[in-house]
């Protein structure tokens, strides 16, 4: 390829065929985004109305913030927000801790073929849907499922995991970590490939054991990535994972397992309380939007992270 001298670059003028082409390329996608992402924003108006489908969004009665004040009078709402935050925060902590441990240990595995094999296996659950896994886990965790078989074999009474308010949250967090830890480890493994091998050699000459090297070279190399991932996960404090909960919960565990998204679904599309459901959803979106903005700001400030 010929190197192009900077001075030979064509001069940019106002609106060229090139710029027009770029706009045209973006047009179909932009139209679809406007229809399906922007127009529904006007639908958020129903959170401030007493929406009746027959009257439409513009014809329904305006009630201001009534839905929002009513929302907090329902005891369920508070419980649901509490459940969401507890589950989401537990998932965030476990979802950073376990992948980091896994990446550190996998980094110690010297056999390349074995390493690749392990990676292939642990990434896989990420690509299976919660419908499938919901079915797999409900079978495994049922009273005559494989888990209870083992529990009974060591002499403990069988546990109804998915019907117990004590066990539901731990099951949710553990199965979530199970599905995602391999995939989550990718960023840490990528960070470890850039560690200078000379560091290990120098440490070995100085007599540092493998454990010392792990502690003083490998782990510090991961710290920036850990900080970044923690910051970015701040935006997920209200995302407890709809697909997973929806496929594993049942009325017995609403008390501990019902989260904002499932609550909005049942309130809005099952009980047809459109306005109230939208109000709860809007509250979640606004808080999440604020959290994500803060987290990006922090990530940008302290880790130089850029969205685009």
């Amino acid at each position, binding site marked *: *390829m*010929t190197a*192009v001298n900077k001075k030979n670059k064509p001069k940019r003028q106002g609106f060229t065929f*090139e*710029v027009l*082409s*770029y*706009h045209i*390329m*973006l047009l*179909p*996608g*932009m139209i679809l*985004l406007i229809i*399906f992402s922007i127009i529904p*924003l*006007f*639908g958020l108006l*129903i959170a401030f109305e007493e929406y009746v489908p027959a009257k439409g*969004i513009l014809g329904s009665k305006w009630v201001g913030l009534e839905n929002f004040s009513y929302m907090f009078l329902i005891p369920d709402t508070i419980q649901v927000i509490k459940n969401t935050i507890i589950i989401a925060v537990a998932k965030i902590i476990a979802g950073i801790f376990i992948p980091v*441990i*896994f990446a550190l*240990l996998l980094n*110690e*595995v010297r056999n390349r073929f*074995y390493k690749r094999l*392990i990676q*292939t*296996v*642990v*990434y*896989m659950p990420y690509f299976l*849907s*919660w*419908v*499938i*896994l*919901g*079915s*797999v*886990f409900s*079978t*495994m965790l049922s*009273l005559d499922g*494989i888990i209870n*078989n083992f529990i009974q074999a060591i002499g403990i009474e069988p546990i109804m995991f998915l019907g117990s308010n004590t066990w539901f949250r731990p099951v949710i967090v553990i199965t979530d970590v*199970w599905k995602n*830890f391999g995939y989550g480890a990718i960023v840490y493994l*990528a960070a470890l490939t850039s560690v200078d091998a000379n560091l290990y050699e120098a440490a070995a000459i100085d007599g540092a054991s493998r*454990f010392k090297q*792990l502690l003083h070279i490998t782990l510090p190399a991961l710290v920036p990535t850990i900080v970044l991932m923690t910051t970015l996960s701040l935006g997920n404090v209200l995302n407890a994972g*709809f697909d997973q909960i*929806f*496929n594993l919960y*049942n009325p017995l565990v609403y008390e501990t397992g019902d989260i904002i998204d499932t609550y909005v679904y049942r309130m809005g599309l099952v009980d047809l309380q459109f306005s109230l*459901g939208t109000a709860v*959803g809007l509250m979640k*979106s606004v808080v999440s*939007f604020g959290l994500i903005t803060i987290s990006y700001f922090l990530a940008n400030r302290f880790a130089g992270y850029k969205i*685009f």
Partner: protein
Amino acid sequence: MVRSKSISDHVIDIISYIVVTIMAVSCILPILNTVAISFSDKSAAQAGIVNFWPVDFTLSSYQELLRDDLFFTSFRNSVIRVIVGGLINLVLTVLMAYPLSKSKRYFPQRNMYMWFLVFTMLFNGGLIPTYILINNLHMLDTIWALVLPGAVPVFNVIILMNFFKNLPDELDEAARIDGANPWIIMIRIFIPLAVPSIATVTLFSIVNHWNAFFDGIIYINSSSKIPLQTYIQQLVVEIRDTSMLTPEEILRISEVSSRTFNAAKVFVTMVPVLIVYPFLQKYFVTGLVMGSVKG
């Protein structure tokens, strides 16, 4: 340099091999359990004595599956959805990622579009307003309700855009001097170079379309049009929520349903993803790393 390993070094070795092996095995066992149940005899499965190997091996649940018309109808629906939705995603992702990869110098409005994309990713109307829109567009109970709302996978656009961005500017400039227009440059030069990245994002959207179930629940009413994951979802919930059913319904379900039969359905639903997975795995790690390189 040869150093004799100390005992603690061996301990580290042993611990890492054991722990990563346990973690990897734990990823397979649930799937193995499902496969074992699907090939087991009904009574053994109902008694809960199947672990990771079929008990009284039989193909009867798969024979039963072959007679289940609704399963195949929804399987076909899902295949159509993957093809239509995947194609729409593919075309729109490329068409959006390419112009956005141009610098402000060549495309002055680029950042405006970028902020718009980021906004749509962070803030949306949510479940109910989107449902009302789909209803008003008369798309309920059609495939369009499943493929159009997610027609632009913004995250994929950003991954592919970063890939395009990392290709040398000189490619564009040389072609420009030779008189090629932006469309020719995109189709003849940039797309062929981006095949691995395009394959990654396309495989991602294929898997997403295959795995989606919730839009099928809310937008599709006729049982002949539901996608496979929605079909499986309803099947599983039906069985779990027997408390909410009438005695007649419970009776019907206990007659038609069985653990082995469901395990067979779940496994067959998993198979397409397991087939695509090796291809996906080949690309997605590099795809992700590329996507994370911000320029």
